[in-house]
């Protein structure tokens, strides 16, 4: 009895080995044939200088990204359908939910920088992960998915953020083989910058408008001179009231808190808020002392695919034009920000926006 069972097992085992071999050999031979015709993988150098082997562009169908700015790049390249993971921030964008409801079905395995649910990420079976910093390290250590680093790891100096947008788009385009779409974005950005510069060429330093970014519910949190926002405001031909503020986090994420006395000292010409509505300031006894409030130069920050207070590719194009047209209406008299928003979405994202869409972007809530 025992022997018979043993025999049956041996037989099964032998069958298993044979079948594996057969399948294996046939599998090998077919892929060899394909490889001769066309390679399935290639090796690239990512932005941190590492060599990564990943599927060729036309074979990438499932890519995982973690950040809201990267999500936008995928939309600009028209490869958003290949996105199997995105950020919770991107999913919370009301405008994006409306224009592409599919975004709500895309999982967000990264909760915050450095905190990734690796098991969920693996279950999504991405062919490539595009990430930076700690996130990239976590995925690399915990899985065998190819990790492409999308940032050099060094912080971008102020003055290089707009160029960095082009570098980022070009890099993503190289991974996805969408160089033509990247070119559209880069040309669009260059044109937008030329346009502003032409309009503002006669504005001298002492004519420049002073802008204060008054964030949070108390309107007393701002981006200082060591952040990307300095560059965004300068690109609009304006001055950042909070240029001397050095922010705690520093660089792009850094916000600094200031007090009302300081704001009264600055006495900005334009105030940009991201919480509440301008009317709140018009009726406030202290804020209404400021020239900006007296002249009703208080504006709510627009929010497209993402709110324009991040160094995203959308805000790099649109924020300087939006702010510039508010600060210098005379120079921008032949310009309509509504048309510009429509044009950007039409040319870069290939989305045709309605007037209602544009209104939602420019006047959130």
């Amino acid at each position, binding site marked *: 009895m025992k022997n018979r069972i043993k025999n049956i097992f041996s037989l099964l085992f032998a069958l298993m080995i044979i079948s594996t071999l057969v399948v294996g050999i046939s599998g090998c031979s077919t892929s060899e044939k394909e490889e001769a015709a066309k390679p399935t993988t290639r090796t690239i150098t990512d932005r941190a200088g590492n060599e990564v082997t990943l599927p060729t562009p036309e074979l990438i169908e499932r890519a995982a990204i973690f950040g*809201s700015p990267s999500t936008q790049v995928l939309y600009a390249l028209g490869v958003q359908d290949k996105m199997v993971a995105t950020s*919770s921030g991107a999913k919370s964008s009301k405008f994006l939910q409306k224009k592409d409801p599919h975004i709500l079905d895309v999982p967000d395995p990264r909760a915050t920088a450095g905190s990734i649910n690796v098991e969920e990420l693996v279950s999504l079976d991405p062919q490539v992960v595009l990430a930076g910093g700690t996130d990239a390290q976590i995925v690399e250590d915990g899985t065998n998915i190819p990790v492409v680093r999308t940032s050099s790891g060094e912080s971008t100096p102020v003055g290089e953020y707009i160029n960095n947008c082009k570098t980022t788009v070009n890099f993503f385009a190289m991974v996805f083989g969408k160089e033509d779409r990247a070119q559209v974005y880069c040309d669009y950005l260059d044109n937008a910058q030329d346009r502003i510069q032409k309009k503002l060429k006669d504005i001298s330093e002492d004519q420049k408008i002073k802008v204060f970014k008054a964030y949070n519910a108390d309107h007393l949190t701002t981006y200082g001179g060591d952040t990307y926002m300095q560059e965004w405001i300068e690109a609009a031909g304006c001055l950042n009231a909070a240029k001397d503020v050095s922010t705690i986090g520093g660089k792009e994420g850094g916000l600094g*808190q200031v*007090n009302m006395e300081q704001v*009264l000292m600055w006495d900005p010409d334009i105030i940009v808020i*991201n919480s509440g509505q301008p009317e709140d300031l018009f009726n406030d006894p202290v804020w209404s002392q400021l020239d900006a409030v007296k002249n009703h130069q208080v504006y709510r920050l627009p929010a497209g695919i993402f709110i324009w207070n991040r160094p995203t590719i959308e805000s790099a194009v649109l924020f300087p034009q939006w702010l510039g047209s508010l600060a210098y209406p005379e120079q921008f008299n032949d310009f309509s920000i509504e048309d510009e928003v429509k044009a950007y979405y039409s040319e870069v994202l290939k989305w045709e926006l309605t007037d209602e869409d544009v209104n939602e972007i420019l006047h959130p809530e």
Partner: protein
Amino acid sequence: MQTEITWTRNKYLKILFRPWTMLIVMPLIGILVSLFIGRYSASPATVVSVFLSKLLPWVDFGIPSTAEVALIWVRLPRLILATFVGMSLAISGASFQGVFRNPLVSSHILGVASGASLGAGIAIIMDAPLWVIQLSAFCSGLAAVAAAYFIGKIFGETGTLTIVLAGIIIGSLFGAALSILKYGADPETKLPEITFWLMGSLAASNWSRVTMALPAMVLGIGGLLSLRWKINVLSLGDEEAKAMGINTNILRAAIIICCTIVTAAAVCVSGVIGWVGLVIPHIGRMLVGPDHKDLLPACLALGGTYLLLVDDIARTIASSEIPIGILTALIGTPFFVFILKQRGTSWS
């Protein structure tokens, strides 16, 4: 009996003369000095003439209206708020230390700070206006302490230790809920806002905040001052207090309610400012001794002045604000180590 009361009165008049003078003089001097310090550069002459112009409205001093706004509408309410927040945290810390007979408890021991933080966090996530954030913080702070108190009650009559334990439990629970909130919060917009709130700041002070918080603070401080003799009795322990014919449960509840009202009012206008309610009572005890009838006024004076001065640093040293909660911790912790080393005075 009659003689005993007279005796107490005389002693009170003699000894208390000192803390009461401190109570009035120190914060007043502090506010007067601080009026001349700030980011809005106004010459001492301007400062004086702005306030003279308020006293003598018929004289024209020719002051720019911005200077008036900066001093009367921005700086003055902030100084008042800083003083009262400091007073509230210090007096509630001292009272709690007496009631719970424990030198290591502070104003936040029963979970009021965690409760208020959660309330503020929820309101921030909901994109609520400022006054809703404050109200939500205040109510949630009260709710946390109420929860701690009743959990303490469930465990029995023995009182103090179980209430402190329940406070720690509730504090952790609300802290965990806040962590969930922060974890899910939008890292680009909402998370920084919550973080700033948690670090504590008086940057957004104005008269409407003063009128919102001051009544609650004055009420609670008044209540604690009127109960300050009885805290002495409680600090002897329940048995002895009961032997003296005092209903310890009602008394303790009354003191906890007063402390909670003042702390919640302080937290809802200033965020979480630690190390005031713990350190100031110890300094007070070094100066006037452990008797609560002297200690509480002394704590008011010290706490108010201390926070006023620390806030002067926070608001003037750089063009961006330094979160005051960070400063009080930086100053408070080494100081506390120093006090512990000097420890000679008894706390009960």
